[in-house]
């Protein structure tokens, strides 16, 4: 009976889209192994949610994790926030090397870490709304955006996404100051387009092109991608909240290929959008589930890895897709859960090596090193 139902359902899907079905059925399962215990911590240091993981050219591993106790202070004029996330460095074998940026002002809720071609380490913090660039020695080199002076208390209401994942609403924009007799501006900014410059609203990720230009995915509160010169000077931004091409509903990850095309994980719209370096929409991939993290491999033939998280707890629907840059799926691997080779809300993928990935998981407080086996 169950089988019959499945056949019927399948027939329905065929009727709906034969082409999509054939693509779906042909997705091969890629074989892989996991080392869930690569990173070795000192006795008194624990990782929490593994928001970001990345490697540099030497194979050193950087982990930006939500750990410790994020707190606001009472007895002050406003709810001043402190702590909650830490950035750690390990060598390629997983041995702990050091902490970077301990006690700095902007490390509240880790969202991502990425390493640029010059081995600078960039972190993205969702709550401080900042992107912070550390050089290879661990010193601050550049700051994008500014931490809000005070935390909003009580909490903003949670709104479920179409996927069921509850998200925090963006703070409602302040109403414009009324001007007597003035009609609404014809060119009022679109919702989610954000302010020109650096005022991020819960940003999620950062990437660079070959020229060193900086792209920031921004994010939960805004719905845009912002582009900066290598010096940090603002160039432009694109996108607003919505479902049309070029619009976003939580742009949750970003990566740039060797040609300078920009790939954005549009989580709420369950697609990856591809833009040229000027933000012109080129194409979209609708076959990668709910993308929560992505990564592009280096080398002459580049691939895109996309983490799919289909439920809010990482216990029912998850996988990682390997996709070529035209959007053709090479294969997928993994499933939701807490065991090795299972994924609990993958928030970060490092794919400096095409067949040796590092993934950071939120709900499992874990980094797994995944080794893809050669195809049989």
């Amino acid at each position, binding site marked *: 009976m169950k089988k019959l139902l499945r056949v019927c359902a399948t027939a329905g899907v065929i009727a709906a889209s034969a082409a999509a079905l054939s693509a779906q059925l042909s997705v091969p399962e890629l074989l892989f192994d996991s080392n869930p215990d690569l990173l070795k*911590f000192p*006795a*008194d*240091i*624990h*990782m*929490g*949610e593994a928001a970001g993981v990345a490697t540099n050219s030497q194979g050193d591993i950087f982990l930006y*994790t*939500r*750990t*410790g*106790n*994020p707190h*606001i202070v009472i007895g002050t004029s406003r*709810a001043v*926030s402190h702590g*909650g996330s830490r950035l750690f460095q390990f060598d390629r074998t997983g041995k702990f090397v050091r902490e970077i940026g301990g006690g700095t002002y902007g490390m*509240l*809720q880790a969202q991502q870490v990425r390493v640029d071609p010059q081995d600078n380490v960039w972190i993205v913090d*969702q*709550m401080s709304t900042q992107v912070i660039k550390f050089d290879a020695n661990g010193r601050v080199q550049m700051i994008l955006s500014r931490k809000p002076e005070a*935390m*909003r*208390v*009580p*909490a*903003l209401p*949670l709104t479920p996404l179409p996927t069921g994942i509850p998200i*925090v609403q963006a703070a409602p924009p302040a109403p414009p100051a009324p001007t007597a007799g003035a009609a609404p501006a014809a060119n009022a900014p679109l919702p989610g387009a954000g302010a020109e410059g650096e005022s991020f609203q*819960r940003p999620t990720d950062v990437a660079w092109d070959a020229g060193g230009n900086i792209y920031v995915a921004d994010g939960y509160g805004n719905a845009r991608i912002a582009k900066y010169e290598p010096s940090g000077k603002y160039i432009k931004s694109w996108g607003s909240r919505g479902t049309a091409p070029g619009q976003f509903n939580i742009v949750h990850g970003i990566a740039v290929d060797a040609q300078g095309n920009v790939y954005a994980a549009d989580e709420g719209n369950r697609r990856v959008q591809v833009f040229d370096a000027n933000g012109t929409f080129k194409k979209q991939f609708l076959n990668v589930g709910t993308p929560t993290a992505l990564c592009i491999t280096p080398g002459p033939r580049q691939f895109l890895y996309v983490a799919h998280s289909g439920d809010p*707890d990482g*216990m029912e629907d998850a996988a990682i897709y390997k996709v070529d840059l035209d959007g053709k799926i090479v294969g997928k691997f993994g499933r939701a*859960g*807490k*065991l090795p080779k299972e994924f609990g809300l993958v928030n970060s993928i490092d794919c400096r090596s095409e067949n040796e990935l590092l993934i950071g998981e*939120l*709900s*499992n*407080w874990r980094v797994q090193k995944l080794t893809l086996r050669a195809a049989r």
Partner: protein
Amino acid sequence: MRRGARVVAVVLLVVACCAWGAGRLSAQSKAKAENVPLISFTSVPNFFKLPPDLYFGEGIGIATNSKGHVFVYTRSGDTRLFEFDEKGNYLKEWGVGLYGLEFAHGVRVDREDNVWVVDEGTNMVIKFNPDGRVAMVLGRRPEPVAGAFDSTMPAAPAEKYRFGRPTDVTWDAQGNIFVSDGYVNSRVVKYDKNGRFVKSVGIRGSQPSQLNTPHSITSDEQGNIYVGDRGNARVQVFDNDLTLRAIYDNVGNPWAVCVSPGPHQYLFVSNSNPDSNPAASWAITGEIYKMELDGTIVGKFGKAGKGLGEFSTVHAIDCRNANELYVVEISAWRAQKILLNPQQPPQSVAR
């Protein structure tokens, strides 16, 4: 004038306390059981030896591992987890700076000596392996970016993998995990040993299988689950599939429950005196019951109070050894080692 103001303030304070205390007291009840034999016991003085710079705060969770080491989960300046050896010597602190430790509610040790903490501040259940590293987490701390949550009564139906101020955890012989959840949710949730949801029972209420602050949970060798349904003044016993088997409603409001191991298992239940000790509460609360698993009362011991061998809001009991118990107390900021003397003939008391 100044004195007058102070008197008024004191009067107001007394009125407020009485009103509040009366409200609290109504949630606490005298046990229905009568003519219960008294079990004699002693409390080991100064058993726990803390370094000079460490202090217990509110005693919230206590548990022993197979070596007899004692884990105390306490609301100190921060919530902290301490390990002592079997003689009460301080060994080390666990989970320093952990993302999941914020407001202690329970600690338990499973059959493989993994140490589990239940934290009602972060809504998480965290499994440490015996080396003190995190092996698994259940539930998810609300993201800090969301700000401070109102954690009063719930609205939404409970979700499979999210807790609402969970209270305690236990396991069966197969490693299935049972979480009492809690102050905001009102249910018991069963997960398999890999953390995958199996089923749950309970909504807020006073009917059989409903719960009103399931505050403590334990299990026997057959995999039956004993839930301290504190607000309903009863222990509810469920089978392994969470079907109700029995209700024991004669031992007051169960703050803490524990089942001893071995061929003859006993159930211990604490009818703890309410925190903040409302007037007259000491007369009717504070004792711990020793019961057969079928609910037959063997005896009771202890009474409310602040002295050695008295109990000041017992919040958890460890009974790995049925004659050598450990208790932690909220209001006294302490833990005690209790030696029961079963060889002495029980004496009955009239109350």
